[in-house]
Each structure stands twice: as structure tokens, then as C-alpha cells.
């Protein structure tokens, strides 16, 4: 299943370095989020992307950023970061601050940045999948050539509304790419315990939708496959269903403190051998693009950057009490008071 790293990538050295920086930035940003959660700066539910970085980088580097539409579930920090959303505003949102992407109204699970094509950030498993198809419906209705990236986890692939959406996407030829981030666990339930047929890639087939399974742990292969699929969907204006194999090293959410209830430490250790960041590091060294010293310098730079983001976000004020009534409607405020 897991293919070898692409031997002769078509990317320039600068692009390869950028992928590396993006992945490492996500990793350290998410580690910082975990720290903030442990410190009580972040509350509620928070889900990190640690281990899955290559997947988001591959897809987000394959689209026209700011033109194409992107939507995902609650594991949403990486997608927003890669689209160019201000990381300090994301961190501030996690901390429930006035300067957050949603002014502190959404939290970790609800990051939005429609100017950059990012439509959330959704908390009901599978619930946003028809919304993503609706974005694709709108671009098709207007005769544009946008594509929509519609991300979900493997758990979402069982929701009824996902099947309804696949049927209509096939029926209406919607230019929507359904991307199952298969990290092998629906919260704490292993794939084989939640899917009658764990080959989730097959689920687009009955709806006449081109479907395949690809590896998401190698950034270069991911980028290559993602670009091929994005180009095909843009050209043909039809849907695509993709199961991308990945792994989350962290728990389901920051509140998931006992991963051994559903997987062994040995299994996790084995998964670390597939660490997408280490794999790209090896390519960079092998091709003499960056040496060990340079890699370490980049990492130090990113750590300092993330530290600053944290400090800046943490310095921001909480929302004003009156803001509780803002933006329920575009043109009216509900009655106030308890």
C-alpha cells in the first residue's frame, strides 16, 4: 500500500523546502496547541493534525488558493494555515479571544476564512459533506472552473448524509473532491470495527464516481496524486472520491488521554517510522537541498515563530460581553437577557 517516496520529484528545491517548512510549521503549531490546552488556555474540544501533515500539504498545494473552495471537519487548523489564514488569529480563536478568526465564537473546531476559500471548520461528523457539495454546486451553477476539496475522517464515511451527497454529486456532476483522511480510527473505534468493508475507497463506485485509495504519508507522492486528481476534476467538472491512508499520532482530540484503550504503544511506534516529516527530511538530505545543520536551523526558526504566535494570541483580549449577541443574524439582534 504505502508506496516508496517519489525518487525524482518534479518540484524545485525551493518548493521542496517550502513543503518541509509547511509540514514542520503545522507540527509545531499543533504541539503548541496541545501545550495551550494542557495549560487551560484552550478549552472544549481540540483535534490536532500531528502525523497527517503530508496529506493537507499535498492537497492544498494542488489547488488555486483563494479561488478553489475548501471545507473540512473539526480537525481544521492545518487546512486554514496552508490557505494562508493568519496563524495568530487561529491560535487566538482556540484561546477564545476577540482577535480570533471568529472573534472567539467558534473555537478550534470552527475556523473560517471564506476570503481564502475556507468554509470551515465543522463539528458534526459528516454533517458538512453536503455543504461542500453545495459549494461545488454554486461554482458549477455560475459556470466557473473551481474545484472543492471536501475533507472528512474515516468515521464520517459511515454517515447517511455522506451517501446522500455522493448520490447527488454523481447525479449532478458536481466538481467536488471527497477526501477521506483515513487515520484508521473513528475517535477510539478502529476501522475494522466501524466499517463493514474497510476499503473505504470503494464507496464512491456505486454512484458512478471515480474512486481510489492513495498514500498520504509521503508528501511528494501525495502532491503528485492530488495534483492529478485536482486537474482531472477541474477539467471534467465531475466528482471524485479518494481514500487517503494516513495516521494520527495524537489522540482523537486533546481530551483523549488514553490511546491504549484502542491501540498499542508498539503500533504507534511502528507508525512513527512512517513519519511524513522524517521522510521528506531524508529526501532533502539525499538530494543535497538541505543539510542537517540547515534543517535544525529551520526547525529552530519555526519554534521561535510559533512561540511568538502563542504569546501574541495570549495577549489578546477576550470578547466583550455585548458581542454575545453579534452576528446571529445579518440584520437583527435577538431579544436580550435571560
Amino acid at each position, binding site marked *: 500500500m504505502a508506496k516508496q517516496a517519489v525518487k525524482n520529484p518534479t518540484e524545485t528545491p525551493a518548493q521542496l523546502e517550502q513543503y518541509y517548512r509547511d509540514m514542520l510549521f503545522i507540527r509545531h503549531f499543533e504541539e503548541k496547541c496541545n501545550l495551550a490546552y494542557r495549560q487551560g488556555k484552550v478549552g472544549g474540544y481540540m483535534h490536532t493534525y500531528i502525523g497527517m501533515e503530508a496529506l493537507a500539504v499535498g492537497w492544498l498545494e494542488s489547488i488555486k488558493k483563494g479561488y478553489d473552495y475548501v471545507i473540512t471537519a473539526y480537525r481544521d487548523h492545518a487546512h486554514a494555515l496552508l490557505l494562508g489564514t493568519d496563524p495568530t488569529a487561529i491560535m487566538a480563536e482556540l484561546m477564545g479571544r476577540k482577535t480570533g478568526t471568529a472573534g472567539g465564537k*467558534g473555537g478550534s473546531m470552527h475556523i473560517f476564512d471564506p476570503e481564502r476559500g475556507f468554509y470551515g471548520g465543522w463539528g458534526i461528523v459528516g454533517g458538512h459533506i453536503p455543504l461542500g457539495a453545495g459549494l461545488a454546486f454554486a461554482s458549477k451553477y455560475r459556470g466557473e472552473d473551481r474545484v472543492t476539496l471536501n475533507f472528512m475522517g474515516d468515521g464520517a464515511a459511515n454517515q447517511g448524509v455522506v451517501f446522500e451527497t455522493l*448520490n447527488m454529486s454523481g447525479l449532478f456532476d458536481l466538481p467536488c473532491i471527497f477526501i477521506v483522511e483515513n487515520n484508521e480510527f473513528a475517535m477510539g473505534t478502529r476501522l475494522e470495527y466501524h466499517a463493514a468493508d474497510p476499503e473505504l475507497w470503494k464507496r464512491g463506485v456505486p454512484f458512478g464516481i471515480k474512486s481510489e485509495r492513495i498514500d498520504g504519508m509521503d508528501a511528494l507522492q501525495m502532491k503528485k496524486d492530488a495534483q492529478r486528481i485536482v486537474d482531472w476534476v477541474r477539467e471534467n467538472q465531475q466528482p471524485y472520491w479518494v481514500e487517503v491512508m494516513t495516521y494520527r499520532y495524537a489522540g482523537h482530540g486533546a481530551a483523549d488521554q488514553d490511546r491504549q484503550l484502542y491501540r498499542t504503544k508498539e503500533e504507534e511506534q511502528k507508525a512513527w517510522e512512517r513519519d511524513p516529516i522524517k521522510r521528506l527530511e531524508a529526501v532533502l538530505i539525499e538530494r543535497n537541498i538541505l543539510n542537517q545543520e540547515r534543517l535544525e536551523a529551520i526547525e529552530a526558526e519555526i519554534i521561535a515563530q510559533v512561540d511568538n504566535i502563542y504569546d501574541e494570541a495570549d495577549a489578546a483580549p477576550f470578547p466583550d460581553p455585548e458581542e454575545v449577541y453579534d452576528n446571529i443574524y*445579518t440584520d437583527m439582534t435577538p431579544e436580550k437577557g435571560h
Partner: protein
Amino acid sequence: MATLEMTYREALQKSMFEEMDKNADVFLMGEDIGRYEGTFKVTKGFFPKYGTRRVVDTPITEAGFTGIATGAAMAGLRPIVEFMTMSFSILALDQIINHTAKIHYMSNGVVKCPIVLRGPGGAAKQLSAQHSHSMDGWFAHVPGLKVVCPATVADVYGMLKTAIADDNPVVFYEHPRLYAMKGELPDDPNFTVPFGKAQILREGKDISLVGYSLMTQINLQAAELLAQDGIDAEVVDVRSLLPLDTETIYASVRKTHRAVVVYEDWKSGGFGSEIHARISEDCFDDLDAPVGRVGGLNVPMPYARNLELLAVTNENDVVAAVKKLL
């Protein structure tokens, strides 16, 4: 101004035709609305005129197409979604309540969702337990939605125009028993009816009958019966549940000093209970009697015609409730 006479159904059609002609972003979506012209024939004539692009026949998957329409609205289109009956909107409740209603707040105003969710709510005739309920109170419970229940031909025309122009999600209740009702509306394509404004359809001095949708028509009939007994009832048509115009309701109660709230939904926990509570809280000093409340029987809608007629509130139920308070 000159007026036109037409049915409630024709007024809906006229309203949608005019708005679709005016704005290319407005489109229709729903089950059997195109080639089949709609179960209640509200969309008759739209498919031949606008074709598959703007009149989208969907599979029978309410959650899915409500979600797709919501996503399209997030991207700036203005969908009008038809539920074959509002009872079927239950299948789409997660979309409507967890997604459609919340997107604007969760994004702190950066995403808008201009969508109309319309369809017939309430009992038609012998459609029994799964096709007959209105549940308007369920939607009016949810911040982020607007909920309107027009009772007249002019209102259904003018409020649908307002709904289509609104940048927020609007749940638009029609009533199956009103579709064939005739009435007048101003001969003016720019005529609209704003949300959040109740109206007095019949002035009276003895008691206020407060209702919406079909029950407003029932209240008008009850007022005629009461007049025969020398009771002068005022009929307050609430029109819009969210936003709710309490001022017009209160002004009427302060005048008559008595009120009965009438609604078709299950009596227990229906939206009429909310109106009742507000009058009781805010008009206590103006009341000469406890506020009355008439709702549908707390039973799943039965099929047998005699039982159905028993379950749905009628003008005699209203008259009886009024007489208890006088």
C-alpha cells in the same frame, strides 16, 4: 391601488416567478418540484420556463439536498428549498439546526446563508401521523433562523419576497388548507411584507384572538360566531414567529384585557405556549382573566376523518375557550 384576486398558491407562484426573473442567483430545489410540478403544484410552470439548472429535482434525501442548498447559499446563491411537507424537514433537522442556522454566528459574520426553506406545515386531509404536523415551534426555538407563517394571500406573496431577499435562513410555512384560498393582493411587483410585524385583521374590544397561519383564518371564523353572541373579538395575526412582534400583540391585549392564543401544533410545548407565556409575563396588570390557550390535541395525527377533525383546532374550540374567559 389596484388589486389582484388570486389563490394563496398562485400568489406564491407569482412571487417566485418575479424574484427568479429579477435575480439569476435564485433557484429552486426539492423533491418532484420540476417535471412533476410539485406535490401541491406550487412550482407548476417553473420547470418549462427555467429548466434543470434553476429548477433542481432532487432524490428523496432531505438532509442531503438541504445541506447542498446551504452550501450553495454559503457561496452566495439564493436557494429556495421545498419540503414536500414540513414533516419531512425532520430528516434535515441536523442540517438546518446544526449547520444552516449556526454558520453566521460560528464564523462571526463572515459567512452568510441566504436560504429559504419552504413547504406546507399542518394537517391537510387524512394524511395521518407522518405527514400532518407543523412543528413550527421547533424552528422558532432556534436562534439564527427566521420563521414566518403567512395566513393571507397578500402576506404569502409579500413575505416570500422578503424571505428571498433576506440574507439569513428563513423557514417559510405555508399551509395545505390555505393553498386554494382566494384573496387580494396589491397589483405591485414591489409589494413586500416585512418580518416581525403582526397585524390586526379584525378589530374588537372584548378579547384578542392571537394566532398565525391557518389558525388566523380559524380565528376570523370564530370571531364571526362570537359576534352572533354579542362578543366583539379582535383577531391578531402574528405572521412572523421569529422575529416576534410582541408590541402589536401586547397593544391588543392592553385594549381588550383578555386573550386566547390559538395554534395548530401540539398544545404542549408548541409555539403558542411561548406567546402565552409572554403575554402572561408582560401584560399581567392589563389582564382581566388568565390567558387562554387552544392547541392541537397532544396525539399523533389520526387517519379517521372524525378523529382528525377532533385533533385539529377548529373555530368551535376557539369559541368555547373564549366563553370560559368571559
